[in-house]
């Protein structure tokens, strides 16, 4: 790009920041409508139970209660409710007949499974009504571990599958001959890894409002990250034509994948269909923990084979995936997991990936930041370190040796368009002081170490899932534009990013971009905020729409200036003749002239663009963590984090940094603090509040040093690639590798708690008592 950029690349404040700083930004819970009812959900207190009888009569008779519903009061359609429909499932071989969830269940399969719902005139009446619903349960034995759930005598959770195996899947990325690959290997490493059902913990609780208007159209205020697909899912579940459903998106208090599917919306629409008033459903924070789908959990054995020069010869993965009580989005997570295990950053000729997706009586597993990649890198990146030690090759060198190059296939099958991972690794290693700090060690009770982990991801879900977004720009007579689209502002900064792209393309200022958004009635189809693809796919849609507006502008201006459009360009809100810049006209003048034309040549200059992702521009990252372990209490303290990040050219560096810092926090929580604990007696998630389930507070964050490696991508708008999920992928293995470097013990089960560190140290001491004071 030869032209100097005036808006893109600048650290501009986000366009929605002032509204949020003053408290006037409307989130779903802030919206007030006339005649609004409060909806509340009766949830199963048992992990597994038949529902013998439900008596709602007492609840219905309570003054202030408008309705009480159960499954028999709604259209009994099954769906993958945590997903936007069957599409992501079919892509991985599952069939629509595996759709397994009703809006309200007729059999309780996890603590929190929705059984009935109430709409009442106030919060307190609704709560009281819930207490009056009489449910007769027949308790059944429950199972929570995947290894237990697949045993022949395990309780059967769904009628349609044996041994609770929802799907057995061999990854289509399997290729070559792994047996031969392992025979050829000089060094084989194998280990079993376990990850957790991390909870998203978006601060804003799940909430939705549903209302039918006088024409029978359904309007839903939804936090869903994918409003257009959500519309289709809601239409299907209520047996309505899609065109009769309208989804409006207010500001959303964080998503991280937790709002990928539908949850409170389902209750709200089911209630709204029965009463003739709008219904608002707001979850308590406790409901957020129990009822909102969380991260899929994996138990997997990974085996890698290397030649003695460090080249990978074989990869084999065998995984059990904890889907919780319903299939939700586990199949997508499994495929991303497998994709990054087998076909991630490294080149390998022989690979085999096998997964069993298993039902358990836990909260259903959905999407969570990274979508299977953090789970994959937890194991793969630790195994690479184990191999490096066995081979006697430096851990950074071993990674560099096996990196793919541009043009090789990414895990989605498309060739990689841009790749700066090598630079990320080298620059990160230099910054953390890799060579100096890997040799040492002290013999004190506080020991330091450094670890590395790398990652690659996808940017958009093409070609596996639907991956296109649309944008519509219209020009106002004052030279400003309305960008009518779905940037989905849940904190990712897409409002600002898209405004910067539009402003750059049109030679206007960011204040000239008015974002009109969040309504499926006015915006073109947009797949939504998934797969780190928004800035890339939607960004290109915005750029395309702006380019069309520019074309029309120059055409009109050319007539007004008596020249050809090819002689013109736009800068600083002025359209000027390239060779004689003083001959110019303002955008506002042209826009006004077009609209208020009296020569029968009136036009509202506008442009649309529907952009389909067709290429793979994966973001990449190398993370280096310097840790200090207190041997006496087993606590891991992160001293420094160096994140070398390749996301192409940054549209807004401040926004990118924010995503990386936030993603780092989420990765640190996943690694060290966030420990979802299920009671084996009750099947309940005991850690169901911020007090017991610890997400990092400001005191838990180390110094974060970001090295942006800006190598332009040929396809992304202005050379940009995605970044939303990157930072939470490699954090955990980098820390785990640092722990091993410090104290010679490896924790393979998340999270790395002080108890596990102490236990590992004690086990190590038992094995080699004479070396207890050395590494």
């Amino acid at each position, binding site marked *: 790009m030869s032209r100097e950029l005036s808006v893109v690349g600048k*650290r501009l404040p986000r366009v929605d920041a002032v509204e949020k700083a*003053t408290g006037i930004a409307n*989130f779903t819970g802030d919206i007030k409508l006339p005649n609004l009812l409060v909806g509340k959900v009766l949830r199963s207190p048992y992990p597994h139970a038949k529902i013998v009888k439900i008596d709602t009569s007492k609840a219905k008779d309570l003054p202030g209660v408008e309705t009480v519903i159960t499954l028999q009061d709604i259209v009994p359609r099954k769906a993958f409710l945590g997903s936007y429909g069957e599409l992501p499932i079919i892509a991985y071989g599952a069939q629509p007949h595996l759709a397994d969830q009703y809006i309200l269940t007729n059999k309780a399969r996890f603590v929190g499974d929705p059984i009935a719902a109430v709409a009442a005139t106030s919060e307190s009446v609704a709560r009281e009504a819930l207490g009056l619903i009489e449910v007769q349960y027949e308790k059944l034995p429950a199972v929570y571990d995947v290894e237990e759930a697949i045993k022949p005598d395990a309780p059967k959770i769904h009628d349609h599958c044996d041994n609770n195996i929802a799907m057995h899947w061999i990854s289509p990325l399997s290729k070559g001959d792994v047996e031969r690959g392992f025979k050829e290997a000089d060094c084989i490493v194998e280990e079993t890894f376990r990850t957790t059902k991390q909870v998203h913990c978006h601060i804003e609780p799940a909430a939705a409002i549903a209302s039918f208007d006088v024409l029978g159209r359904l309007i839903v205020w939804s936090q869903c990250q994918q409003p257009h697909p959500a519309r289709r899912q809601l239409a299907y579940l209520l047996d309505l034509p899609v065109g009769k459903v309208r989804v409006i998106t207010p500001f959303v208090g964080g998503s991280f994948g937790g709002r990928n599917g539908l949850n409170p919306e389902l209750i709200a629409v089911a209630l709204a269909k029965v009463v003739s008033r709008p219904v608002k459903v707001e979850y*308590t924070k406790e409901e957020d923990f129990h009822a909102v789908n969380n991260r899929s959990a994996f138990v997997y054995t990974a085996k890698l084979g290397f030649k003695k020069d460090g080249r990978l010869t074989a990869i084999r993965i065998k995984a059990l995936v904890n889907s919780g009580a319903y299939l939700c989005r586990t199949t997508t997570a499994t495929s991303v997991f497998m994709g990054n295990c087998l076909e991630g950053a490294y080149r390998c000729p022989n690979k085999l990936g096998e997964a069993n997706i298993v039902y358990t009586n836990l909260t259903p597993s959905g999407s969570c930041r990274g979508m299977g990649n953090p789970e994959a890198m937890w194991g793969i990146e630790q195994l690479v370190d184990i191999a490096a030690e066995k081979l006697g090759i430096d851990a950074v060198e071993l990674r560099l040796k096996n990196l793919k190059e541009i043009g090789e296939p990414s895990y989605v099958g498309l060739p990689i368009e841009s790749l700066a991972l090598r630079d990320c690794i080298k620059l990160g290693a230099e910054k953390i002081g890799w060579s100096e700090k890997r040799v040492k060690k002290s013999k004190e009770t506080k020991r330091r170490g450094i670890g590395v982990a790398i990652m690659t991801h996808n940017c958009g879900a093409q070609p596996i899932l639907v991956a296109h977004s649309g944008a519509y720009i219209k020009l106002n007579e004052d030279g400003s534009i309305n960008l009518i689209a779905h940037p989905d502002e849940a*904190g990712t900064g897409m409002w600002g990013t898209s405004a910067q792209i539009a402003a750059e393309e049109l030679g206007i200022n960011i204040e000239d971009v008015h974002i009109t958004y969040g309504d499926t009635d006015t915006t073109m189809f947009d797949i939504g905020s998934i797969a780190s693809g928004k800035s890339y796919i939607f960004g290109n849609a915005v750029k395309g729409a702006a380019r069309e507006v520019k074309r029309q502008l120059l055409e009109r201006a050319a007539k007004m200036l008596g020249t050809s459009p090819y002689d013109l360009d736009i800068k600083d809100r002025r359209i000027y003749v390239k060779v004689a810049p003083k001959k110019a006209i303002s955008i506002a003048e042209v826009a006004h002239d077009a609209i208020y034309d009296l020569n029968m040549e009136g036009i509202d200059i506008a442009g649309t663009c529907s952009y389909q992702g067709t290429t793979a521009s994966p973001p990449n990252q190398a993370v280096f963590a310097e840790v200090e372990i207190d041997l006496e209490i087993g606590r891991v303290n992160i001293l420094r984090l160096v994140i070398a990040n390749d996301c192409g050219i940054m549209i807004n560096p401040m926004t990118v940094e*924010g995503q990386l*810092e936030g993603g780092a926090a989420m990765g640190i929580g996943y690694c060290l603090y966030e420990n979802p604990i299920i009671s084996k007696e009750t099947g309940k998630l005991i850690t169901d509040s*911020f007090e017991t389930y610890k997400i990092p*507070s400001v005191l838990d*964050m180390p110094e974060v040093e970001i090295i942006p490696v800006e190598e332009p991508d040929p396809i992304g708008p202005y050379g940009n690639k995605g970044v939303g999920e990157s930072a939470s992928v490699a954090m955990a293995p980098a820390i785990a590798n640092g722990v091993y470097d410090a104290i010679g013990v490896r924790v393979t089960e998340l999270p790395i708690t002080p108890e596990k560190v102490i236990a590992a140290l004690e086990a190590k001491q038992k094995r080699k008592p004479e070396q207890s004071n050395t590494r």
Partner: protein
Amino acid sequence: MQKQTAKFLINGKSYELVIEPNITLLELLREELGLTGTKYGCGIGQCGSCTVLVDCKPTLSCLTLAVTGQNRSILTIEGLSEGNILHPIQKAFVDHGAIQCGFCTPGMIMTAKALLDKNYLPTKEEVKVALSGNLCRCTGYVKIIDAVLAAAEMIRKGDKLE
């Protein structure tokens, strides 16, 4: 429950309301007065999103009975800016990229205000300790700390509005 009349002074304005004595200050602000800038994040005092200032003290409004707010001066996020002019803390949050989803922001800003009103020369550690009761899932806190320190600088230089 028998409703009662209660008087409040919120953001410099007087209100006389008829309320149930068991409602929280958070419910009073959001439901009775439509001041929805203060957020319900957890309702049990663990996330800090509901933080307002009661007699200049950062207070979890979800754990505070509304009636105990009588005869006290209450400041919410809506009372911080003057018309279109942002308070230095708000401006710093905007300029330093300290806001992502924005849900924890009002609580963070009010807590920061309480800190800077008492101590306009905080160290980084002091800022961290002051904000340790406000959870954020988006930002990793890095730019929030930067913003509070920058706001302190602005206030020291006399950009203070009050």
